[in-house]
């Protein structure tokens, strides 16, 4: 795919030697740092981050994004502008670093009876309408206990009951976002299939 003029210039200068390359790297780092600051600030209020912490995370994200970009420069194919491609590294670095920043080692535990007592409120089922949802919830619990693997149950509990973010869970379980997402995706399909088979939910549209 042909590169646009500005992207072409970035690639040429970053691939050149000497002063041209040094200057392009400095400009790229400044751009990444500006992007990282904006992205950390965008997320900061959700995580009570401020001042030095924000700037420290932004610097780390920009530095690590820079290393990744330079290592992968040859893989840039011009499907987007160079700067959009580069900013993607910044966003992913900020995302990962904020996850790590707030990570405390607290592996999810298996579901117990107390957890199941909380399930109706999690799904917005009120006590006065229990007659309407009791059968559905009993079937749901049965399917969670019988159809899901132990790993799926732990991930389900962490996400549904404890509202833990995928990224935090990745760190706790030593895996990646895609693997956790796939775990919960497969669990949702299994649970829906079981409830559809019992006539308690409709097939997906």
């Amino acid at each position, binding site marked *: 795919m042909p590169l646009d003029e500005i992207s072409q210039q970035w690639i040429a200068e970053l691939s050149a030697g000497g002063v041209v390359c040094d200057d392009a790297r400095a400009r790229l780092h400044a751009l990444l740092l*500006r*992007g990282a600051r*904006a*992205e950390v600030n*965008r*997320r900061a209020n959700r995580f009570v981050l401020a001042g030095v912490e924000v700037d420290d995370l932004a610097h780390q994200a920009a530095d690590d994004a820079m290393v990744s970009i330079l290592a992968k420069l040859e893989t840039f194919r011009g*499907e*987007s*502008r160079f*700067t*959009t*491609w580069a*900013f*993607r590294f*910044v*966003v*992913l670095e*900020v*995302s990962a670093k904020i996850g790590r920043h707030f990570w405390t080692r607290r592996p999810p535990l298996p579901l117990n009876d107390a957890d199941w007592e909380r399930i109706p*409120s*999690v*799904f*917005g089922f009120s006590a006065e309408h229990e007659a309407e949802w009791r059968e*559905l919830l009993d079937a*749901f619990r049965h399917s969670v206990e019988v159809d899901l693997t132990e790993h799926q149950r732990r991930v389900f509990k962490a996400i*549904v009951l404890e*509202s833990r*973010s*995928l*990224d935090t869970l990745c760190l706790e379980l030593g895996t*990646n*976002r*895609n693997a956790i*997402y*796939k775990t919960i*995706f497969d669990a*949702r*399909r299994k*649970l*829906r299939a079981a*409830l559809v088979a019992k006539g308690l*939910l*409709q097939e*997906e549209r």
Partner: protein
Amino acid sequence: MNNPIDLDAFLSTDSRDVGCEGAMALLHVYTELYANDPDAARTTYAGIAAHLAACEPCFDDFQGLLALTRT
């Protein structure tokens, strides 16, 4: 307390969903197209659109990149 989760919606999955890796691999391409023409992005990359609709952290990354492309 968090807002209740809609059980039916929670148990809904989209077979076009490309997953986190698939979405992140082309996030820059999707985002740039989306910035110019959201419908074209959703149609051309239906698997990414399906994923972003279902995965909150990836959607957050998309929002961040979209904001940066507009600066």
